């Protein structure tokens, strides 16, 4: 039943490696972008608050497929932006990371904002009374505590991101979902086996992530 795996025709591990790479780069990107967005949303400058709110609400509510295909059709094919990639393979990967970062960043921002709300207001007030600037308050007092509070929700975002990378197949990034499409096209007689292999692959990627970070979240949480 699983003889298609032995044929050597399909590089399943390679495809999942691309999935992992997509996830890692997008996770790092969206952590940075999400933190910046959260900073904007709690900042004292109305313009930045406005931008943060608008961006989060618009992008979060746009289907990821649209975001990613928009990156490919709009940025790459129409405007000719290649992000330094020389082949479609490179460009596609980078565009997918860009799209996933833009999308996942909004969820990181919202998770982080809820974490900021767990920090008692008195701490920020005390820090301001000591003469710290807004950025110092955020960087030294609020964010360190906020991050420790939101490891569990961020884990959910990371797991969702891992699964969302399959959308990159729509613009031809050679990750797991694309290989699955190829295999379904060729192995009509083993449809459910092919599906099972890829479903299992994603379980193996996400389950340990959840268990590990769940444990970290318990250890790191600030006991109040």
């Amino acid at each position, binding site marked *: 039943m699983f003889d298609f795996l032995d044929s050597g025709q399909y590089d399943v591990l390679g495809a999942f490696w691309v999935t992992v790479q997509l996830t890692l780069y997008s996770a790092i990107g969206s952590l940075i972008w999400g933190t910046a967005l959260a900073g904007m949303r709690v900042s004292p400058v109305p313009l930045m608050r406005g931008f943060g709110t608008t961006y989060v609400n618009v992008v979060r509510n746009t289907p990821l497929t649209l975001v990613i295909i928009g990156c490919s059709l709009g940025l790459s*094919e129409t405007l000719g932006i290649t992000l330094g990639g020389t082949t479609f393979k490179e460009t596609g990967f980078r565009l997918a990371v860009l799209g996933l970062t833009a999308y996942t960043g909004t969820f990181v921002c919202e998770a982080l904002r809820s974490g900021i709300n767990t920090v008692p207001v008195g701490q920020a007030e005390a820090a301001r009374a000591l003469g710290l600037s807004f950025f110092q308050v955020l960087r030294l007092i609020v964010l360190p505590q906020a991050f420790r509070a939101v490891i569990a929700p961020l884990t959910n975002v990371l797991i969702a991101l891992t699964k969302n990378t399959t959308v990159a197949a*729509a*613009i031809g990034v050679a990750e797991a979902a694309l290989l699955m499409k190829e295999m379904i*096209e060729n192995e009509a007689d083993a449809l459910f086996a092919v599906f099972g292999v890829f479903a299992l692959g994603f379980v193996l990627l996400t389950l340990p992530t959840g268990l590990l970070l769940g444990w970290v979240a318990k250890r790191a949480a600030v006991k109040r």
Partner: protein
Amino acid sequence: MKLYKAGAAVAAAVALALTATACGGSGDKASGDAGSSGGAKKDKVVIGIKFDQPGIGLKNPDGKFTGFDVDVATYVAKELGYQPDQIEFKQAISAERENLISNGDVKFVVASYSINEKRKAKVDFAGPYLLAHQDLLVRADDTSITKPEDLNKKKLCSVTGSTSAQNVKEKLAPEADLKQNAGYSECLTALESKAVDALTTDNSILAGYAAQEKNKGKFKLAGLSLSNENYGIGLKKGDKELQTKINAALKKMVADGAWEAAVKTNFGPAGYKNEPAPQITEGS
């Protein structure tokens, strides 16, 4: 309190709407089931076709279906004793064709369905009714691609996971810069904006796109025969009776000229040179 009342009213309205659609849905389903089982009344036949391939099988905005596969399906259904108004077309996307057939959701599938061994393990075929070749669609003024080797320096577009895309990667031109899009329409946009140099898949599908009103004169087929794809009509495994009937219908369609006419109307305007009708090889 006022808010609560308004909320209740909205909830009631939504619930009503849901029940109403649910009724409509189940009603549709019931009539559909009667059709597929083809009971005593024998009033409807469900046929799987593509909904998104101009020239092959396309659902138009007005709900009508056009394309070569649609013409073949209609002709075969007529030979089986169904009038055109008794046909219900169901979308058969590539990955779902085998399941639609083996679950009995459709009586048969006419959806640019290439006959191959793996598929024959799951379903039976009648036909073939068309011999297609993998080919390239290029801009009308482009003369730089004349043989497969030329592709190695070109930017190429195809659909994610399709056989054509795999052929390019593995055999035809491993060096070519291949972009895989979700659909052929996206590739066509890229081809027009010169983001890619060629679009590759079966020539019948390409001819269908090039023959569309809005694309006339913009694109042409390169005329390379990069593979042989025998399109067959997929049906439930072991249904010899239906297979024989469909084969007979296909033979008649070729003999009375309806086949030739269907090819001309659906693929004609793009400089597509059709192969003669293929010999029936399945189950004869």
